[in-house]
């Protein structure tokens, strides 16, 4: 009986029923669920439900521009995608952009952090200038770089023409297009890496450097035994975070090259977009989206694992 009253709402037979229900909802042991409920409901409606829908779609041959009743295909879509050379090509392209861009971001970001780790006059202001790119919209960044790379009025083309006498269209070759995207992405996101590494650098207690000074450690030893240990977990977080974000990159590439020339910069996200919204192969696009989702979930789990381990280490 006691168990029942605490789990089930009282029956609606008496006068004070409405108030009884309110009290039942407001009971202290239900405080957590009550506060969380609106958020979970919203998320279910706007995020989870669509995901389930598209998960279902990925087993059919549904096309959003046709009226025909979809036919169940089981795992066929997944099998087709996994054996499709075009899909693997897009994965390779994505991998290439992700790895080179993230590597570049990490290196530049680390260097920037070392530069800004110590104080100097007007440091905050200069830091602002460097941090601006990552707060910008992809659309603005795409515009900057389109103008920058433009063969007729871009500064890059003008600069190259000083040496070659000809205008230069970086984005017209596959390698050039990838390079152009990597540079834009690294410009936008290396400040992000800097911000994380900087947090690690300033968290190093000053007395450790003093101890190293007393112990007469060389600059390299100091870096290896003091600086790096404090930065490495944040560096790893930056790596994972940027990999996740770059892996799903759509906007920047879509706006700068639209995947071209040919399909040389077509990332997996753009390909999924094309499948879904240009070729209307909705089910296949859903299946591909789920493959992307799988990768992101794995990376996110690793990321959260590192976050947790780092927080635990900090509390000791």
């Amino acid at each position, binding site marked *: 009986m006691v168990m029942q009253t605490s789990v089930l709402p009282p029956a609606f037979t008496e006068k004070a029923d409405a108030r009884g229900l309110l009290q039942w909802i407001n009971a202290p042991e239900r*405080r*957590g*669920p009550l506060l*969380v409920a609106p*958020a*979970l409901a*919203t*998320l279910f*409606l*706007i*995020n*989870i*439900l669509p*995901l389930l*829908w*598209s998960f279902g779609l990925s087993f059919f041959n549904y096309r*959003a521009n046709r009226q025909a009743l979809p036919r169940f295909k089981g795992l066929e879509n997944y099998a087709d995608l996994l054996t499709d050379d075009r899909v693997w090509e897009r994965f390779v392209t994505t991998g290439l952009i992700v790895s080179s861009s993230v590597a570049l971001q990490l290196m530049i970001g680390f260097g920037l952090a070392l*530069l*800004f780790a110590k*104080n100097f006059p*007007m440091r905050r202001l*200069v*830091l602002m200038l*460097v*941090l601006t790119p990552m*707060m*910008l*919209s*992809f*659309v*603005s*960044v795409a*515009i*900057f770089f389109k*103008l*920058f790379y433009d063969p*007729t*009025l871009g500064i890059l083309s*003008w600069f190259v023409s000083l040496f070659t006498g000809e205008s230069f269209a970086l984005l017209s070759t596959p390698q050039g297009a990838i390079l152009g995207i990597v540079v834009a992405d690294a*410009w936008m996101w290396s400040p992000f890496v800097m911000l*994380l590494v900087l*947090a690690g650098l300033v968290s190093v207690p000053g007395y450790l450097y003093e101890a190293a000074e007393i112990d007469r450690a060389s600059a390299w030893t100091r870096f290896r035994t003091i600086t790096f240990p404090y930065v490495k977990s944040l560096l790893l977080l930056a790596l994972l975070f940027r990999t996740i974000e770059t*892996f*799903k990159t*759509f*906007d920047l590439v879509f*706006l700068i090259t639209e995947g071209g020339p040919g399909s040389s910069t077509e990332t997996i996200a753009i390909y*999924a*977009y094309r499948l*879904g*919204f240009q070729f209307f192969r*909705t089910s296949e696009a*859903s299946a591909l*989206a789920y493959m*992307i989702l799988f990768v*992101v979930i794995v990376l*996110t*789990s690793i*990321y*959260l694992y590192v976050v947790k381990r780092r927080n635990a280490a900090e509390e000791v």
Partner: protein
Amino acid sequence: MSGSFRKHDQASKLRAACAWIVGGIYFAPVFWIILTAFKTRADALAIPPKLFFSPTLDNFHAVFFNVSSTGDVTGTGVWLYFANSAFIAITSVLLALVIGTLAAYAFSRYPLKGNDTYLFVILTTRMLPPIVVIIPIFLMFRVTGLSGSYLGIILLYTGFNLPFSIWMMKSFFDDLNPEVEDSARMDGSGDWTVLGRIALPQVLAGLAATAVFALILTWNEFIFALLLTGTETRTVPVAIASTIGGEIGVHWGKLSAMVSLFLIPVFIVTFALQNQLLRGVTFGTVRK
């Protein structure tokens, strides 16, 4: 000791010089766009690019007004896109903030069974590639007629901002000393009073930071807006992108003016949020 102090001084000057150069490089593209916004059409097309020119406000005028050959002035409707962007961002952020703050407080103070799993799923929905959600959302909106409506895009952005608000606000609540709240309980306050009178006032700065951050993320968002807004509900990023889609002559001056206007709130926010940037860009997972 004075000798080594002088050396320290020189190193600091060198560092400052390097930092200014780097800062210049990072800000150059932004600077260039702003510069271009003040150029006449001829100046904007000049080769080599002009650093010095007589500035004009024509481009800003052209963003909002068409002047026909007969001299009639008509609006371009661009102000509507700015209004849309602001309205949609503010509404969805407010909604997400209210719902998210309550949930964040619960996740921080009344852990549910499987608390970490909930939080993981919530963060995952934020980490999702937009393309994964957009296909079914697009279909759902088509079925329910929400496509192209304010309600649709606001709902979507609320869902998009909610995970961010929850993780950010949880990180702020986690930073508080729960003893203060316990003490208020000992003094006879109920849970709701504790939340409203004790906990919330302590995280007001965090709440503001979360709000402003979410506003900027929403203000900047492109792909959902591209696919789910109609001509009446179009936001600025989509409007900007549509002007560069074509292959023929982009009016760079006018485009730059529009981008410059679009950037103003972003600058203000970046400046105001400097101390919370780290937390913001990592969704509250990295605090220090």
